[in-house]
C-alpha cells in the first residue's frame, strides 16, 4: 500500500510540476496575473507530494519491506535503523528521489522568501525550476521508479554497501545535493532575466543570497565527502580526482566564480552577460555531474549501477535544458547591456582574472575527466588520466588565484590606485616570503612546494588582517558581507596550510605486529595488544587495540577493526583515528599473518584536519555574507509600504 501511495504521489507531483512550469511561464509572457499566481501554490503542493513520496520510500526501508525491490537490493534486516533510513538514498533511484525532494524544498524556499520580487520574475524563476522538476520526476517514473515491487518478496535484503554504513552517509549526500540543486535557483534567475530582458543590479542583489547559500552547502558537501573518504577508505587519502569528485568540484569552482562575478554585477552593473553565463554553467555542470555518475560512460568508485536507457534519458534532458539555455543566451545576451566602465587595473579586472583562473581550472578538470572518453570515442585508444595530471595542472592554476585573494579586496573599484596598493602590501609580502622560506627549515627538509604553500597562506592571512584593520580604523561599522568575505578567504588560507603540511610531511609505517610488539613513528610509540573478536549488528569483527604513547606518557588508545559483513560477506577495514589540531594518528589493520600477527599500517598526518576546518570557515564566511542587511532592506521597505 505505502509504496503504491508513494508512486501515486510522484505522479501527482509530476502533474503539479507541469502546472508549476507551464502556466506561470506562459502567464509571464502574456502578462496574465492569474496564471502567474499559480506558481507559488503549485510549487508548494508539488513539494507536499514529493515529500509524501520520499516519506513512503523511507518508511519502506525503516520497516524492512523487502517486497519493494529497492529495499531488497539495498538494505538488510539487521542494518541499524539510522542506516536503514539513509539507505533510502543509497541507490540510483533513491538518490534521484532525494534530488527531486531537495529541488522541491529549494523551490518552496523561493516561494516563501520572494515577496519583494516582481511577480513576473517570481513566476519565471519558479516556472523554470518546475521544468527541472518535471525532468527528474519523468526520469524517475519512466526509467528509475523506486517503488517497483519484488514479488514474491525477498526474505531479506542484499545489504547496503559497507562503505555506506557510516554517519557520513547520513549527512554527505543531502548536504551535497543541497548545493548541486541550489544552483538551479541562480540558473532560474538567469533564465528569467534572459527571457524578460531585465538584467540590472537589483537582479544581482536578488539572486546573490540564493547563489551564496547553494555555494555554502556545496562547500560543506565536498568537505564532508573528503573527510569521509579519509576515515572510511583505510589509507587516509583525502582527494583522489575520481570522476565523481571532479563532478562536484567543477560546479563548485564555477559557483565560486559566480559569487565573485555577482559581486561586480551588483555593485557596478558590469559583467552581466558573463554572470548570466556562469549561472547557466554552474547548474549545467551539476546536471552533467548527475549524468556522468549514472550513465556508465566513466568508471568511478561512486558510480551507480548503470543502464544505457537511463544514460540516454539524462543525456537528452541535458541537451534540452543546457542546450536550450545556451541557445537563449546566444540570442539574448547581447541585449543585456554593458554596465560601468573600469580600468585595466581595478577591482573589476582583478575579479575578472579570478574568474578566468577559476574557469580555466574548471576546464582543466573537465578536460582531464573526459579526455579518456574523447580518445576512446574517436577510436584512438584508451588512456587513463589520474592524480599526477590533475595535480600538475591544477596547482599552477590555483597559485596565482590564491595570490589574487590578497590584492583584490584591497583594490579600488573602477580604478585601482597601484602605488597605494604597493605601499600597503609590500611589507606583508616581504614578511610572507621570509617566513615561508624559513619555516620549512625548522621542520626538517626544505621543500619548495612547502614554501609556496606557506607563502600563499601567510599572504592571505596578512592581507585579510590589513583589510580588516583598515576598516576598523575608518569606524565604518558592521558589515556582514565584508567580514564574511574575509572569513571565507581566511578559511582558504587554513585549507592551504593543511594541504601543504600533510602532503609534504605525512609519514607512514607498514609493520608486522605480534601481540606485545611496538612500533614508533614520529616520536609516538604504538603498542599492539592483539585483537579480540566481536559481533556487530550486521557484521563480525576482529578489533585490534593499539596503545599510543609519547615520551612514556599515554596519549590515546586506537581500535582499528577488520569487519566481515554478514549479508554480503564483504571484508572491510575500519580505521582508527586520533584527531588532533596539529596531527592525526591513523591506524588500520591489514591482513592477519601467520602466528597470530597482523600487518598494521600506521600514519602520522600533520595538520590534516586544517583542510576541513578551512572549508568550514569558508562556508561560515559565506553564511555570514548572506545575513547582510542589504538583502533584507528590500523586504522591509515593502513591508512598511504595505
Amino acid at each position: 500500500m505505502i509504496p503504491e501511495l508513494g508512486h501515486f504521489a510522484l505522479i501527482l507531483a509530476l502533474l503539479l510540476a507541469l502546472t508549476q512550469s507551464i502556466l506561470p511561464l506562459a502567464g509571464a509572457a502574456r502578462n496574465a496575473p492569474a496564471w502567474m499566481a499559480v506558481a507559488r501554490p503549485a510549487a508548494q503542493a508539488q513539494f507536499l507530494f514529493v515529500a509524501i513520496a520520499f516519506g513512503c520510500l523511507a518508511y519502506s526501508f525503516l520497516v524492512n519491506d523487502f517486497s519493494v525491490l529497492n529495499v531488497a537490493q539495498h538494505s538488510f534486516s539487521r542494518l541499524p535503523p539510522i542506516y536503514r533510513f539513509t539507505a533510502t538514498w543509497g541507490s540510483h533511484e533513491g538518490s534521484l528521489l532525494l534530488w527531486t525532494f531537495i529541488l522541491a524544498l529549494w523551490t518552496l524556499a523561493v516561494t516563501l522568501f520572494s515577496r519583494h520580487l516582481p511577480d513576473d520574475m517570481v513566476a519565471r524563476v519558479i516556472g523554470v525550476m518546475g521544468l527541472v522538476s518535471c525532468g527528474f520526476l519523468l526520469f524517475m517514473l519512466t526509467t528509475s521508479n523506486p517503488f517497483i515491487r519484488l514479488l514474491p518478496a525477498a526474505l531479506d535484503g542484499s545489504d547496503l554497501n559497507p562503505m555506506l554504513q557510516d554517519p557520513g552517509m547520513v549527512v554527505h549526500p543531502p548536504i551535497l545535493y543541497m548545493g548541486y540543486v541550489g544552483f538551479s535557483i541562480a540558473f532560474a534567475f538567469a533564465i528569467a532575466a534572459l527571457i524578460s530582458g531585465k538584467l540590472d543590479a537589483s537582479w544581482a542583489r536578488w539572486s546573490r543570497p540564493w547563489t551564496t547559500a547553494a555555494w555554502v552547502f556545496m562547500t560543506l558537501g565536498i568537505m564532508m565527502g573528503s573527510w569521509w573518504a579519509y576515515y572510511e577508505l583505510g589509507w587516509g587519502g583525502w582527494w583522489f580526482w575520481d570522476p565523481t569528485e571532479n563532478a562536484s568540484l567543477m560546479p563548485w569552482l564555477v559557483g565560486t566564480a559566480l559569487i565573485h562575478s555577482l559581486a561586480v554585477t551588483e555593485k557596478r552593473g558590469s559583467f552581466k552577460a558573463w554572470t548570466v553565463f556562469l549561472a547557466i554553467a554552474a547548474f549545467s555542470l551539476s546536471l552533467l555531474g548527475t549524468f556522468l555518475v549514472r550513465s556508465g560512460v566513466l568508471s568511478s568508485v561512486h558510480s551507480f549501477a548503470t543502464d544505457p536507457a537511463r544514460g540516454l534519458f539524462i543525456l537528452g534532458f541535458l541537451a534540452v535544458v543546457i542546450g536550450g539555455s545556451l541557445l537563449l543566451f546566444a540570442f539574448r545576451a547581447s541585449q543585456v547591456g554593458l554596465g560601468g566602465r573600469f580600468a585595466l587595473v581595478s577591482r573589476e579586472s582583478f575579479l575578472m582574472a579570478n574568474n578566468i583562473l577559476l574557469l580555466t581550472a574548471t576546464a582543466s578538470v573537465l578536460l582531464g575527466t573526459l579526455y579518456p572518453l574523447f580518445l576512446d570515442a574517436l577510436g584512438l585508444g584508451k588512456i587513463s588520466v589520474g592524480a599526477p595530471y590533475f595535480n600538475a595542472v591544477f596547482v599552477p592554476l590555483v597559485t596565482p588565484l590564491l595570490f589574487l585573494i590578497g590584492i583584490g579586496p584591497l583594490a579600488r573599484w573602477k580604478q585601482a590606485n597601484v602605488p597605494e596598493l604597493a605601499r600597503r602590501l609590500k611589507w606583508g609580502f616581504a614578511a610572507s616570503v621570509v617566513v615561508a622560506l624559513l619555516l620549512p627549515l625548522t621542520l626538517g627538509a626544505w621543500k619548495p612546494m612547502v614554501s609556496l604553500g606557506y607563502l600563499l597562506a601567510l599572504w592571505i592571512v596578512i592581507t585579510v588582517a590589513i583589510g580588516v584593520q583598515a576598516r576598523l580604523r575608518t569606524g565604518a561599522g558592521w558589515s556582514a558581507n565584508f567580514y564574511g568575505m574575509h572569513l571565507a578567504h581566511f578559511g582558504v588560507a587554513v585549507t592551504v596550510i593543511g594541504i601543504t603540511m600533510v602532503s609534504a610531511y605525512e609519514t607512514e609505517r607498514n609493520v608486522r605486529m605480534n601481540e606485545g610488539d611496538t612500533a614508533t613513528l614520529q616520536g609516538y610509540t604504538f603498542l599492539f595488544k592483539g585483537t579480540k573478536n566481536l559481533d556487530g549488528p550486521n557484521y563480525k569483527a576482529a578489533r585490534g587495540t593499539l596503545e599510543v604513547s609519547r615520551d612514556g606518557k599515554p596519549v590515546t588508545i586506537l581500535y582499528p577493526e577488520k569487519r566481515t559483513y554478514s549479508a554480503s560477506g564483504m571484508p572491510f577495514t575500519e580505521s582508527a583515528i586520533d584527531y588532533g589540531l596539529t596531527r592525526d594518528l591513523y591506524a588500520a589493520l591489514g591482513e592477519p599473518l601467520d602466528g597470530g600477527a597482523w600487518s598494521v599500517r600506521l600514519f602520522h598526518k600533520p595538520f590534516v584536519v586544517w583542510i576541513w576546518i578551512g572549508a568550514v570557515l569558508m562556508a561560515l564566511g559565506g553564511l555570514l555574507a548572506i545575513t547582510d542587511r542589504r538583502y533584507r532592506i528590500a523586504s522591509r521597505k515593502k513591508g512598511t509600504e504595505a
Partner: protein
Amino acid sequence: MKRFLIPLAIFLVLVGFLGVGLRLDPHEVPSPLIGKLAPDFNLPLLSDASRHFSPAEMRGKVWLLNVWASWCTSCRQEHETLLELARRGVVPIYGMDYKDQPADAQGVLNQAGNPYVETVMDIDGRVGINFGVYGVPETYVIDKSGMIRYKLTGPLTPENLEGKILPLLKELQK
C-alpha cells in the same frame, strides 16, 4: 553576437562525445599486443605434466588461446559456446588455466566437457601477465605466423563469435 554562440557550439560537441560514450565500455582495456608476436612460453600440460606446449608448435596454423580458470564463474557462461565451436572443428582451441590448481581444472573439464585440444597450466600467472591478462575469461586469435590478431575480454558469446571471430578466422585461414 556570434561569440555568444560559442558556449552552445562547445556544448553540442560535448553532447556528441557523451552520446558516443554511452556505447563504449570504460572498463575495457585494449591490448597493445595486437599485431605483435604472441609472447613465447613453455608450460606443462594439464593432461600430462611431463609434457609441455609452446606457441611455436602452432606455426603455420591459425588457433585460439582461451584463458580460463575453475574459480571463474563467467568462464562457465562461455563453456557451451566453446564446446560448440570445438565441435564445428573450425579452429583448434588451446586452453590456458590461469592461477588455478590442476585438480580443480580437471574437475571442471570432466564435469562440463572439454573443448580444448590441450590445456596448459599457468599456475603463478606469469605467462598471463606477459599476455596482458587482467580478467578471465579472455580469448586470443593467433595467426599462422604466430601474431596475435584479436583479443576478446569477457565470455565468448554466439554474437561475438559470429560477428567478429568467425569472419576473422576465415580471413586468416585463407
